[in-house]
């Protein structure tokens, strides 16, 4: 079995299984991740946009409410009454009760003169006439004016809301100073996360609330959100960090509410809900890898088993077809040699005839010639033995079919070796199965097989040893007769064991055996529908087992 082949096969199977299963999973996972990421991004943008819009609306409503409060005073209170600071103080207190955000109230007539003031102390820098102030003219023309946030006299960030009352008797303005810390709160209540930020910039891109990007009243360098309109969101990169920015423009004043959120944080928060996906993905991948390895191991084990079984089946087939080819070749060679050998034989015979007939005994070379002729004949006989054995091995003679008793054939064969065995001190032990069935086979050819094997055993033992002959029959549908011939000789060398039935493979010296006996035996047994095998360990004897079908 080729272990390297199986190892490569296993590796190929694992790699193929992994490619075919993990790759689609990875593609699926990647696509899913991208889509989810995009959806999360879109979701985050939408949420942030909604948040900015919501905060902007809250802020706008806060300002609108303050305007409405001031409007309700201007609509209900005449100037004569309100210019009285005690009356104004009453109104201020009432406003404070409603919403504690007012710092001061001023009443200013159309000439720009401040008529009354209540609340926190007015700044000494605050002029008593505002005709030169831009806001005064804007308030007079548009009716309502909201200032930017500024640091008031008491170092309190504040803004001014001015509401103009158009009156037949002369227009006047009610101006309120309002704390802006509430605006900070409204803005700050927006974003989440560690890197989230929210702030307001005015039309000059000046910060109106404290922010991570800068202190209040600081000039926001980049980006410039002041020109932003409506409500929108965008992704931006600041110092290598990805951020989402949502901007919402207020109508009055012309401020822009900015909410910044860290993009990975915004997406990550959405991923939190589905953080089981990575363990699931890893688990599935592991499962696939383990399955691929297990399946590959199972398949390669099966392949190994099948190959082993196939080789078990094929070995005799290969052996038998090898024998057939060898037989054909051996017969061809024998024939080609036999013809010239026949001529040499006849010529030598002719020479012998002549030497026998002629009166050349007086010749001094007579003996030499006679010896030469005899030697030629001896060597021809030796060649003849080889070629005749080759023919015997190669020829296809249909076996005779007779009902025979194997035990009897064995007994008859052993008799032939009796004298030689006792001469060499070899004991032949037999153990015959008494109930051995008779089988239909060729007794002569079978005896030839037994002769070859026993002859080999005697030669292998040399002097003093034991040969065991045993017969048995297997039960079952395809019952067989088993003939075991074993000896306690030196055994067959390991390197010859696999080729022992091949022609010209022999453990004997070249002049003692042709190396064809076992090949012929193999051919005969196969022809009789049986099988012959050998088991041997070096220096531990050899056992030949012949199986013949019971027919």
């Amino acid at each position: 079995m080729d272990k390297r082949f199986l190892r490569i096969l296993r590796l190929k199977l694992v790699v193929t299984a992994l490619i075919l299963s993990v790759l689609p999973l990875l593609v699926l996972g990647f696509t899913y991740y991208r889509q989810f990421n995009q959806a999360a991004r879109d979701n985050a943008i939408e949420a942030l946009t909604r948040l900015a819009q919501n905060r902007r609306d809250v802020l706008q409503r806060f300002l609108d409410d303050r305007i409405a409060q001031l409007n309700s005073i201007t609509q209900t209170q005449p100037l004569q009454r309100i210019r009285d600071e005690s009356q104004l103080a009453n109104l201020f207190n009432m406003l404070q009760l409603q919403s504690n955000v007012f710092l001061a109230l001023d009443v200013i007539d159309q000439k720009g003169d401040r008529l009354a003031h209540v609340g926190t102390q007015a700044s000494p820098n605050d002029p008593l006439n505002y005709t030169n102030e831009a806001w005064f003219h804007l308030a007079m023309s548009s009716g309502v004016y909201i200032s930017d946030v500024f640091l008031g006299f008491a170092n309190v960030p504040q803004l001014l809301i001015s509401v103009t009352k158009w009156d037949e008797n002369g227009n006047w303005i009610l101006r309120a100073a309002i704390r802006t810390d509430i605006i900070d709160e409204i803005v700050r209540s927006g974003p989440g996360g560690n890197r989230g930020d929210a702030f307001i910039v005015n039309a000059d891109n000046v910060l109106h609330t404290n922010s991570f990007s800068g202190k209040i009243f600081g000039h926001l360098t980049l980006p410039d959100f002041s020109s932003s309109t409506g409500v929108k969101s965008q992704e931006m990169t600041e110092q290598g960090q990805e951020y989402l920015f949502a901007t919402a423009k207020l109508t009055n004043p012309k401020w822009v509410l900015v909410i910044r959120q860290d993009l990975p944080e915004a997406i990550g928060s959405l991923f939190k809900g589905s953080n089981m996906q990575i363990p699931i993905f890893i688990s599935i991948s592991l499962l696939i890898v383990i399955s691929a390895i297990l399946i590959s191991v199972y398949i390669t084990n099966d392949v190994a088993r099948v190959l082993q079984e196939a080789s078990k089946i094929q070995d005799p087939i290969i052996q038998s077809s090898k024998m057939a080819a060898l037989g054909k070749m051996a017969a061809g060679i024998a024939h080609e040699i036999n013809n010239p050998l026949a001529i040499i034989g006849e010529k030598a015979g002719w020479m012998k005839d002549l030497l026998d007939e002629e009166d050349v005994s007086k010749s001094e070379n007579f003996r030499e010639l006679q010896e030469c002729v005899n030697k030629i004949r001896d060597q021809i006989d030796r060649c003849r033995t080889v070629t005749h054995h080759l023919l015997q091995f190669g020829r296809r003679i249909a076996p005779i079919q007779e009902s025979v008793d194997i035990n009897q054939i064995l007994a008859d064969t052993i008799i032939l070796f009796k004298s030689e065995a006792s001469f060499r001190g070899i004991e032949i032990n037999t153990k015959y199965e008494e109930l051995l069935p008779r089988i239909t086979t060729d007794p002569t050819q079978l005896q030839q097989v037994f002769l070859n094997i026993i002859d080999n055993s005697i030669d292998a033992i040399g002097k003093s040893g034991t040969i065991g002959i045993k017969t048995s029959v297997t039960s079952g549908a395809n019952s067989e007769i088993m003939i075991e011939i074993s000896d306690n000789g030196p055994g067959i060398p390991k390197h010859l064991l696999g080729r022992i039935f091949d022609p010209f493979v022999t453990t004997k010296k070249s002049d003692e055996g042709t190396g064809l006996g076992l090949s012929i035996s193999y051919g005969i047994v196969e022809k009789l529908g049986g099988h012959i095998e050998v088991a041997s360990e070096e220096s531990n004897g050899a056992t030949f087992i012949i199986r013949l079908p019971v027919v």
Partner: protein
Amino acid sequence: MTVICYRNMGECCAIISSVSASCHRKYIMKDWRVLLVDDEEEFRSTLAERLRRRGIAVNEAGGGEEAFRIIEAFAPQVIVLDVLMPGIGGLQVLKRVKADHPNIQVILLTGLGTTEEGRELGAFDYLIKPIHIEKLIEKIGEALDHN
């Protein structure tokens, strides 16, 4: 001990155990008419000469056609026939001989072990080359006895 004397031979042969057959044949071989058919001339002529030296009347043929002609004129009792020959092969010759002269015994000579067909076609026996001349003579004797 049995003694058989052959007429016109002037000799008697004591038949004792195994010597009997060869002794017996030595005298009757002189009546044998054998046709040797083989395309290998060196082999054929030498073997024929050796058989003649032993008193057997031998005729030779190098092929099938020649063999048929000689059979008619020579009327052999036994044909020693090579199987593998160019032209008309040994088995074809055998077939025709057995058809025309069923009494002529045929001994096949072969360099190859395939002789089953020859037996089926009526050959008496076969010998594988190279042969021992003694074996051939014995086989011829057996063939004649069989007749």
